[in-house]
């Protein structure tokens, strides 16, 4: 196997495969969907986490929070005003501080804090507001204070904003439309036009040919996944883990696309098959949109193990310990897929050239 030839084939893919209708569709679709969802359910310019505070005394925490650039702080004159503001969604989180709050945390006494949470606020904003608050307390007291936060959810009962519900679907689209469709259609196009025969009768091997196509799918898939997460303000924490998941998801998409294309002979047949496979690829995303559907249903789909950990990290602040089981399952699925893809694609030559 020649790395140089893989590079030549890959360069050809990017130089001349990127002006195909399917490539443009694969890149444009998740972006258009992102814009659509953001226009309806959110905003691209959605800025800082909005924290409201009602302070019975004159806590130093409030003064410190005012200095923080990562949050948008508003102080309220009464508990009712604060509650009303959170209920209307003008504040993501509202905190009530008692008049002896500073002395209690300085003495290390157990303290209870009531936090109003707007049900439709982004999880990211809730996490930022809460961590900013705790950080200031730690800074002032110099230690981990024994604080018990009592959350009170206000507004939408389900508590998950529509924008967040669509995020898994958008991420799946970004990874799988590009990672799946781009190499699959590129391979079928080469079969249809007979160019695969021309390439495979040069020193380029079948393995090099498929690896180049797979790599193109992986690169486009990761790029689109990253871009989509960035546009949805979800590429902001545990970037290493997110990149690993995007990489594994891209491999899954690319392998799946090439396996399918190995059996297809025309663009019409692959197009209709991809449409039919949509439910398998995007099933977990659909389940996530509708909380009424039992969420375990999503686990039946292989793409769940890409989508769920990304969502856990990006929206719930998940870490390796909360997502490692999904990643192990994903690696298992990939091992099977790669083995199958190797067998299937090695048979293609006999059928197609």
């Amino acid at each position, binding site marked *: 196997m020649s790395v*140089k030839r893989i590079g030549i084939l890959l360069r050809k893919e990017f*130089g*001349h495969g990127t002006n195909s209708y399917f490539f443009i569709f694969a890149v444009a679709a998740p972006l258009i969907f992102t814009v659509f969802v953001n226009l309806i359910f959110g905003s691209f310019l959605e800025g800082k986490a909005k924290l409201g505070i009602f302070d019975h005394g004159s806590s130093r925490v409030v003064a410190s929070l005012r200095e923080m650039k990562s949050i948008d702080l508003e102080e309220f004159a009464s508990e009712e005003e604060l509650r009303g503001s959170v209920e209307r969604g003008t504040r993501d989180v509202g905190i009530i501080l008692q008049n002896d709050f500073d002395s209690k945390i300085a003495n290390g006494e157990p303290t209870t804090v009531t936090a109003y949470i707007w049900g439709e606020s982004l999880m990211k904003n809730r996490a930022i507001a809460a961590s900013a608050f705790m950080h200031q307390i730690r800074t002032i007291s110099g230690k981990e204070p024994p604080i018990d936060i009592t959350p009170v959810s206000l507004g939408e009962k389900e508590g998950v904003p529509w924008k967040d519900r669509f995020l898994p679907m958008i991420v799946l689209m970004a990874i799988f439309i590009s990672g799946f469709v781009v190499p699959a259609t590129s391979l079928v196009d080469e079969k249809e036009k007979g160019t695969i*025969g021309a390439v495979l*009768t*040069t*020193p380029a*091997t079948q393995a090099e040919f498929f690896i180049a196509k797979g790599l193109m799918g992986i690169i486009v898939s990761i790029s689109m996944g990253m871009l989509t997460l960035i546009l949805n303000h979800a590429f902001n924490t545990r970037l290493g883990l997110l990149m690993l998941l995007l990489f594994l998801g891209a491999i899954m998409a690319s392998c799946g696309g090439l396996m399918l294309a190995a059996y297809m002979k025309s663009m019409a047949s692959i197009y209709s098959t991809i449409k039919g496979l949509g439910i398998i690829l995007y099933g977990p995303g659909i389940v996530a949109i509708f909380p009424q559907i039992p969420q375990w249903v999503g686990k039946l789909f292989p793409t769940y193990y890409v989508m769920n950990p990304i969502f856990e990290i990006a929206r719930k602040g998940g870490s390796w310990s909360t997502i490692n089981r999904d990643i192990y399952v994903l690696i298992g699925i990939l091992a099977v897929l790669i083995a199958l893809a190797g067998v299937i694609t090695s048979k293609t030559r006999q059928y197609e050239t």
Partner: protein
Amino acid sequence: MSADAIRVDNIRFSYGEITAVNGISFHVEEGEIFGFLGPNGAGKSTTIKMLTGQLSPKDGEITVLGLDVTRESGAVQSQIGICFERTNLYEQMSAIENLKFFASLYGVKGFDVDRLLARVGLKDRGSDRVSSLSKGMKQRLMVARALVNESKILFLDEPTEGLDPTSANNIRNVILEERERGATVFLTTHDMLEADKLSDRVAFINEGEIVALDTPHNLKQRYGKRIMKAQVKTDSGELEDREIVMDDTSTAKDMHELFSNESVVTIHSEEASLEDIFIQITGRGLTG
């Protein structure tokens, strides 16, 4: 001509129940132009695919440049050039990009794309997208692509099909130049005159079997009959054709009678064509 460039021993291939190639054997010597002739569906393309490592024979052995094609297809493919029957160029790329891409896959150093384009008469169209080229131009580019690696063996499947007479002649000259360079040429064509003119030897394949293999001259000697074709004017002033078989015991007598009894307008001798011979052997035409 010396060693064998290609040696085929009793190969078979079938697509399901349909036998495409049924136990054919032949050899092609180094530096030879070998014409492989037969009608559509006779097994020509399947044979080329087996010779170039695209298909593995179900039975038999193929040796190309001393290498077993089935086991060492990669090594074989690095030393051959193929012009496919079906146009299979990258249509969105320019002619130059197509040639450079394939040259890079072969690892050709110092590749002179302009010279190659000039050889096939496409020097001025090198930067044009392939999709904008005419069918004939694409065909010439296909031939050029087969030449990028200056291969030891050229497999040309209908290389002049769809070309105007001038372009076809240009390609025939390229084939002869390649032979001069030392390349072996495996040529399939429907054009019997072309095969006759270019080939050192020809093989006729019909229904997956080789039915004749020799030099065009020997085949004509063995199977063909020379005839004298005359056009005579009848008493009513109409023109009629007369044929006299040459090399026959009655030839001299028939000639004498023709000139004595008829008013001869034109007369010329005619050799049997390869197509005539093919029809004689197989009972079917080459275009069928």
